[in-house]
């Protein structure tokens, strides 16, 4: 029995890639989201924070951006600037 319980131990869950869109305000708070509610909100907030940071630092470098798209191997993050906040689209290249 002990052997079986060893195999029954919880394995780290495979995190799905986020898919959907969300709007965030200028403070990084998520206003609306179509991303699955099973996806961790804190990760979405981190994505929102980094996106806003990218826009803000581009402005500081006198390179204000209206839109950008980050291409990862398995996900694209598209962000459009919206009055200090942003609309963010998360598109997995190969959804699980």
């Amino acid at each position, binding site marked *: 029995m002990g052997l079986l319980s060893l195999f029954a131990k919880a394995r780290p869950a495979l*995190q799905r*890639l*986020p898919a959907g869109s969300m709007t965030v305000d200028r403070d990084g708070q998520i206003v609306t989201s179509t991303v699955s509610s099973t996806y961790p909100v804190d*990760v979405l907030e*981190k*994505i929102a924070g*980094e996106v806003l*940071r*990218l826009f803000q*630092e*581009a402005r*500081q*470098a*006198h*390179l*204000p*951006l*209206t*839109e*950008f*798209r*980050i*291409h*990862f*191997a*398995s*996900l694209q*993050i598209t962000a459009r600037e919206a009055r200090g906040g942003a609309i963010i689209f998360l598109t997995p290249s190969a959804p699980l």
Partner: protein
Amino acid sequence: MDAPHKILILDDDPAILDLYKEWLSQLPSKPDIEISNNGARAMALLEAEPYRLLICDLKMPKMDGLQVLSIVRRRFPELRTVVMTGVEDEEFRSRAYALGVDLFWLKPDTHQNMQMFLECIESLLGRDAQSGFRGIQNKSLMDILQMECLSQSSTVFRITRGSLVGKIWILNGDLIDAETEGARGEVAFRRILEWKSGTFETLPAEADRERTIFKSINALLLEAAQAIDETGGSGTGESNEEVDHRKTVWRLATLTREGGEWVVSLPHDVAGAAEGWGTHSANEFSNWMRSATESIKRLGEQIEAGPWSHIQAQNFERKLIMMPSKNKNFLVAWPPAADSSGIFEKSKKLVSSWDS
């Protein structure tokens, strides 16, 4: 047959530009003439290919003529420069000459004046085709120094090459000191001797100058000549500066051919300095590149989305592609009308050729 010299005319008045272009195209040497109505575009043109002469107005919006000339002096020391202005002010004249312009000319108001101006331009185009110091063509600095020492002179040479200034002290035919860019003595002397062309002036002797060089002039010149021979024998004979210049011209030509606006590269090494081609804001843009790279890395790790291949961005003025290569990140700017799907492939091609 030699290619015609290229002249760039910079003036914010389009009518003046057309007029000068027409006049200058009648010069006997039939130079190629380009025009620009602002300093930024003039800089881009100068970086894209070698010009012989820049004719520059002083009063212009955004970047005035003195600003342009100060950048030009630093970046293109070989370029001849002429100020052609309606500003009759002694202060501007002396400031322009202090920036090393070859000619300061008030905008001609008579036909005779115009003829004289054209003759001066023709003369400037023809002069100094080979290396040598202005005033004594086809004589190297070594020749000039030898002549001074053989004649047991006492003098001070002030030598200028673009923004670089050096001084060499000679007392009773002995070389006693040299100074340039924070270096002194033999080091400074060797550095000055590497300059292949420039201008020099003789200043009054300074008998009380402290002596820092004790070797004979012949010994020092021999050492310098050997060093130059060794450098020349090991490769193509080009100095590092020439090689860098050639690379820059080639890169800008590639960028222009592909239709790009500018490129900034930033080494992965934190201590590495950013380089820019076609832009003067390389440092500013590199700040964003650095922070964007950090953000993207954090995101990639957090989401487990794998490595990033590139970031595509845009605003109302341009489209941008940032992508990593082996040692650097590159930010390539394209015009707003550029085809979004095509610029990624073009950027990839540019980056791989520039980085190789």
